[in-house]
């Protein structure tokens, strides 16, 4: 399996990243190297192995918490991470569907 120029452009588009032609070529090389490396996994016979959803093993259940409010109410701290904000709102370039 190898990555094509079109794959790279599509991934960039889905990620809302604009790439120059040179960058596309460079990412094409990098992504193909990654895929080739991961491709080694296809050598392993997994016909009798169930999918691994976590490294804790199949029987391990997810950790749960009680339904209690003990977070939030920290608008200033949350908003302080935003590059742009106004009146307690995050401000982003206008997006309309």
């Amino acid at each position: 399996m190898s990555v094509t120029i079109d794959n790279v452009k599509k991934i960039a588009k889905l990620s809302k990243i604009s790439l120059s032609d040179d960058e596309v070529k460079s990412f094409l090389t990098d992504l193909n190297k990654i895929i080739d490396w991961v491709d080694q996994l296809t050598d392993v016979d997994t016909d009798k192995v169930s999918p691994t959803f976590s490294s804790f093993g199949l029987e391990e259940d997810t950790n749960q918490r009680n339904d209690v409010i003990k977070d939030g109410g920290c608008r200033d701290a949350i908003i302080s991470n935003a590059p742009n904000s106004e009146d307690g709102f995050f401000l982003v370039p206008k997006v309309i569907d």
Partner: protein
Amino acid sequence: MSNLLKGKTGDWEIVIGIEIHAQIISQSKLFSGSSTLFGSEHNTQVSFVDAGMPGMLPVINSVCIEQAVKTGLGLNAKINNFSIFDRKNYFYPDLPQGYQISQFEQPIVGNGEIMIDLDGNTIKKVRIERLHLEQDAGKSLHDQHPSYSYVDLNRSGIALMEIVSMPDMSSAEEAQAYIKKVRNIMKYLQTCDGNMDEGSLRADINVSVRKPGNELGIRCEIKNVNSIKFIGQAIEYEAKRQIDIIEDGKVIKQQTRLFDPKKGQTRAMRSKEEAHDYRYFPDPDLLPLVFTDEFVESIRKTLPELPDLKKQRFVDEYGLSPYDAGLLVSEKDTADYFEIAATGSNSKLVCNWIAGELFSFLNKENKRIDESPVTPVNLGKLINLIDNGTITGRIAKDIFEMMFKSGDDPMTIVDSNNMRQVSDEGEIEKIVDLIITSNPDQVKALEIKPNLMGWFVGQVMKETQGKANPKAVNEILIKKLIIKD
């Protein structure tokens, strides 16, 4: 019953499938401890998890799991003892993580089915494909600033159940009945408040058309239609649009459309085919959800009586018609109101008064039944006063109006306004005599027009302000005017 639509080339069948997004009733969010309260100041119910900050990890809310299982059981569905969470990747400013945690291949609830009620008596089965848990996104406000959108993340991370139906509905009415039924079941279960105005319940409608018996046609998805009425309008418009296109020899484009309530039309959303590449993969931050059968059974034991069973019980226990029983159970609050009012009073009369006077007053004042100034206990008392002859049915309507205004006990109103029924024959006779002597022309006319009798009854009622016992009035009038002894 036929749901076929007529076109230029013959009959068409509409095929409808519905995805409902139902907000789970819980104090805190699906994966964080922030509050879910509606209408709070923007961005005050946001934790670092909800804001998608690096390194923050989701921890699942046990109540949300129970609510989803409960809803699954209410939809007669298979509960999956093993399910996993996946990341649905897409880019949008109100989705700070860059992905929504959802369930893709292995949802918490599998196949189910519900019965929907159509025009009172007909019942149709609609199959449920699945129910899965997922996070809600935040909210973008586009009209606050000329060049920027505002983002409020209060809703980000609130637990939703996505309930997907099979394409089993074939008319706007069936689709509406389906949504009403699912909403009603969730309200009985108290797993979702069903409030479409506040967005606690949202529906995406998939519509396609085909010639009866043919393969399924190409479908369009109508997004976020936010009222039962609009859902009907959107389906009717969309089906007609698709039939026109096919009959003109063109092909339907599979697309996502929006309903415009002002125009009553659907229109294509800006094309974003690429966005449908969600690149789902299992979320490595969350372990699978594993249930024992005992856990599922322990939830099953907490289920309340659901609408279908309640309806049957109302028929059996109170002797109501299936139509009346269906009407009462269609809202849990109405069914509860009825049961309190009917305790120790005539249940058929209680039902009639709820469906008649009470609904009409509530509609006029735009109140819900749980806000009714006439308590169910007081309605029961009023009906007992009619039933035991203390007041007439006619005066009961006046009393009801006063009860609706003041919230008073009916007996207090009867006593302080001297509204007891007059059954004393001597007293009624005196009034009848007076009316006969002062209306000789009408007495004469009665000989050729027997239905003038009603006019005499009306006069006596007017004279007694509706308090005379109608049976006694009739008997005395017949004795004096027909038999003439």
